[in-house]
């Protein structure tokens, strides 16, 4: 695999809930090591798009190829591919009945066949990287929002994924905690992690993204590097959107 190969390929992706057509044919490719930020007004389908990438939402049409395999094929064992796609949620979704360490070791022990000692060593290393090593034995309810989200990120990283999906990771945080989570994500990008990030943090998009995608009304309206995306937007809807948020 060379550094520039395609990790996720999306072809004519469609998703409807009953009569409501949320995604109306999305086409894009995400390359290994790329950081793609997805923005759009609320209700535009950007979260749905992200959630179809690991089939948390099952597409009603189109194809998603992950590492060359069509994961929308019912014969594909999606559990195996999800191990390679970490996901971070707006609401953190830590397991409240487990300590931080247990949150992080459950899946590696059950799915990667790691021993408890191995899994805990990896988990502590990751926690150390995000400055939470001393909270390993805490329960999620004892953590602040920013800490919870950092744990959620390293919980996904403990599976050693090939791509990380972020679904509005800072939207549920108090303003003073947004920075600590974005810092972790920036560090991750610097290490070369492939990331797809749905966010409202325009600063993050400008600074970190390789490409910014604007989704509205269920289709990709603009797809450009951040300098061009913010400096010289072509799409009218994007122009009006940016004028509202910037």
């Amino acid at each position, binding site marked *: 695999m060379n550094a520039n190969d395609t990790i996720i390929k999306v072809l004519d992706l469609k998703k409807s809930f009953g009569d409501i057509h949320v995604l109306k044919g999305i086409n894009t490719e995400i390359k290994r090591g790329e950081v793609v930020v997805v923005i759009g007004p609320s209700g535009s389908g950007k979260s749905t798009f992200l959630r179809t990438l*690991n089939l*948390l939402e*099952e597409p009603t049409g189109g194809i998603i190829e992950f590492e060359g395999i069509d994961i929308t094929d019912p014969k594909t064992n999606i*559990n*195996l*591919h*999800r*191990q*390679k*796609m*970490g*996901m971070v*949620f707006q*609401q953190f*979704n*830590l*397991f*409240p*009945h487990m300590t931080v360490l247990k949150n992080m070791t*459950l*899946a590696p022990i*059950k*799915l990667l066949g790691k021993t408890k000692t191995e899994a805990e060593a990896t988990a502590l290393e990751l926690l150390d990287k995000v400055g939470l090593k001393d909270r390993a034995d805490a*329960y999620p*309810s*004892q953590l602040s929002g920013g800490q919870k989200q950092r744990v*959620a990120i390293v*919980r*996904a990283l403990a*599976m050693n994924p090939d791509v990380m*999906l972020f679904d509005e990771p800072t939207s549920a945080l108090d303003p003073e905690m947004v920075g600590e989570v974005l810092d972790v994500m920036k560090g991750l990008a610097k290490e070369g992690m492939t990331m797809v990030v749905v966010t409202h943090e325009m600063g993050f998009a400008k600074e970190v993204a390789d490409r910014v995608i604007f989704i509205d009304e269920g289709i990709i309206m603009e797809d450009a590097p951040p300098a061009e995306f913010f400096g010289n937007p072509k799409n009218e809807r994007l122009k009006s959107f940016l004028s509202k948020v910037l």
Partner: protein
Amino acid sequence: MEVLTLENWLQSAPEWIASFPEWLQNLFFQLYQTFVYQDRWKFFTDGLKITFLVTIGALILGVIIGLIIAIIRTTHDNSKKKPFFLLRFLNWFCNIYLTVIRGTPMMVQLLIMGFVIMVPKSDAGMVVCGIVTLGINSGAYVAEIARSGLMSINIGQTEAGRSLGLSYGQTMWHIVIPQAIKNILPALGNEMITLLKDTSLVSVIALRDVTKQAQNIVSKTYQAYIPYISLAIIYLIIVIILTKLLGILERRLRKSER
């Protein structure tokens, strides 16, 4: 067997009792007959053993059955696509079970199990029959409790588990069920108390639980007052103790989360 009379008893009883008014003498006599004479308190303790055994056995069975049904029904209801055939069959079967068990009296279920289906011959067989019948009955009620418990867990928990690559079963077992159990514990405690009281019905299949034993004492003394009032007090004390214990357990569980 000779029947003890008040006059006979007063001769052997302490003298100070004879100085009491007649109604009080009578009360003491009945207490003596119910608990002391011929070691009759053992009737109650023997009966309580059966009562506890049946309650605990039926509770365990009921929780297992209830959880299985709840999982089948929530899996069926949550599946976005048309569920596969086996699941639809299981769901259909569970619905029949719930309808039948909740639609017929416990007493009738005991009579049918005891005299039509299982027909136990030995003492142990009767205990098993009692446990199975009450367990099956309780399972129907636990199923609804467990279902509400499973549905009370935020969908984000399932999504987080699935997004890590855990299967539906693993996610249920490690993530959803442990949290659901914590949520349903109060309701499950109520079910246990109901079950304890319902065990009084097993006397219809000749199981010698504490209710049956109280009846046995009445049939010996021809005095219903003290045995039955005592029986009620025994149940009441056990229920009060259980309620207190459940409260402590609940508080403990909540603490582990903080």
